């Protein structure tokens, strides 16, 4: 089976300090990859390079056989355009990043209308459908400021899904939530995982990671320090990984 998305030799520098030292990673269709590690380990940067929100200094993102990003010096392979990659990849942010000037339904409808070119009426219908899927149709006309953190994040997930992405990226989706609101967001993500959506999740929720992760990545200091399959949490032997898992569980 071919990978849906592959990172090839991704390096990223901010000024003179390099934060990713050559990351290689394959994500297969229908799989759920979880990335965890201490803060500053580069896990968010890896995730953000998958849709080129963080442009790598070097290396490629290969999505369905098309290469994006800068590549390696001297490599003359034709590159795809960022916007084409992003239209196939959905992303959910730690801070939700809903558009505060638009109601919940318009957050989604604007995205559908702007990106797919569907008419405004069609876009609204699609938006209503997506809101219904995350159980928020009744809140359609509420503005982000009138929704709880958990509700906002569910709208954000609905917004990303409304564009029929082939891959969903989650950047610490529950880290900004009050503890009692984490569950509702994880429930939506769990349901999504069950539908067979390909997901890459950066998270500190180890219980959830263990539950859905069939590829587990432990990052430390800009490297993939350790990785494994669904049984990773029970079988890993790396001392550093075990220490980290022990410290957050």
């Amino acid at each position, binding site marked *: 089976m071919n990978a849906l998305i592959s990172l090839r030799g991704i390096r990223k520098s901010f000024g003179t300090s390099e934060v990713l030292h050559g990351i290689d990673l394959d994500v297969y269709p229908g799989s759920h990859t979880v990335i965890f590690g201490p803060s500053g380990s580069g896990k968010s940067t890896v995730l953000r390079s998958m*849709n080129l*929100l963080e442009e790598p200094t070097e290396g490629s993102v290969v999505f369905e056989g098309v290469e994006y990003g800068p590549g390696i010096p001297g490599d003359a392979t034709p590159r795809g355009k960022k*916007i084409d990659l*992003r*239209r*196939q*990849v*959905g*992303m959910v*942010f730690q*801070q939700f*990043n*809903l*558009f*505060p*000037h*638009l*109601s919940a*339904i318009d957050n989604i409808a*604007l*995205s559908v209308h*702007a*990106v797919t070119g569907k008419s405004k*009426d069609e876009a*609204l*219908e699609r938006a*209503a*459908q997506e809101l*219904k899927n995350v159980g928020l*149709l*009744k809140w*359609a*006309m*509420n*503005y982000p*400021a*009138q929704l709880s953190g958990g509700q906002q994040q569910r709208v954000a997930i609905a*917004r*990303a899904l409304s*564009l029929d992405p082939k891959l969903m990226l989650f950047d610490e989706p529950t880290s900004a939530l009050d503890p009692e609101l984490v569950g509702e967001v994880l429930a939506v993500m769990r349901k999504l995982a069950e539908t067979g959506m390909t997901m890459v999740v950066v998270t500190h929720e180890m219980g959830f990671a263990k539950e859905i992760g069939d590829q587990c990545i432990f990052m430390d200091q800009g490297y993939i320090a350790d990785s494994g399959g669904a049984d990773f949490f029970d079988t890993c032997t790396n001392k550093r990984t075990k220490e980290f898992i022990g410290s957050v569980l």
Partner: protein
Amino acid sequence: MEETPRLNFMWHLVWDFRAELLRGLLTAFEVAITALILSLFVGLLFALMKMSRFALWRGIASTYVNVFRGIPALVSVVWVYFGWSLLFGYNFTVYQAGVIALTLLYSSFFAEIFRSALEAVHKGQREAGQALGMSRLRIFRSIVMPQALKIAIPNIGSMYIGMIKDTSTFTVIGLAELVFVMQSINAEYFQPFVLFTAAAGLYVAAAFLVDFVFRIVEGGFSYPKVGRVKRFLTRRKRAQIQRLVEAN
């Protein structure tokens, strides 16, 4: 014993010349609003140049802002009206000269207002638009600009009041705005106290009116929506969503 001259305030002049005074105020409004619309566009353009990746654009914009922000309206209008004519042999009408002078001056202020408003929009907003696959123009038009405008509108209102007041200096080129009208009445009746007081009153009334209008506009850009005007304008959309909610 010397007799102190009796003060004789001819307040009735204000009423007698009400049509002329109001026409003067209206001219001030007109020049200022034309200049406002132009300065908003020019100011936005320079704000974007100031935020450009290219040093050349940034340099041009900074120079423009610093030059025209530093020139008083009176100097600016004299230069545009007489200077342009001397240098290039083209004569602007007083109305045109007033609009151009105000636009040069206020677009430099608007450039700064827009720049700070655009920068105040959270970085995550642009990122969300990018991650969704929106074009740069769409992100600017539908996400960043509406939020920046909301931040900028109170400042734009204050600037517009300033623009109306600055039209008073255009008396020097003979624009028939409020002060010009007042001075011609004064030349006949010599009632400076009465007439200046009337002018002050009219300018203040104008400021209140502008404030009122801008509050309505601000309501339109606020979220959640406030104000009856906004609710009225969005009623069809709200009904449509209501139907969708009920249908599903």
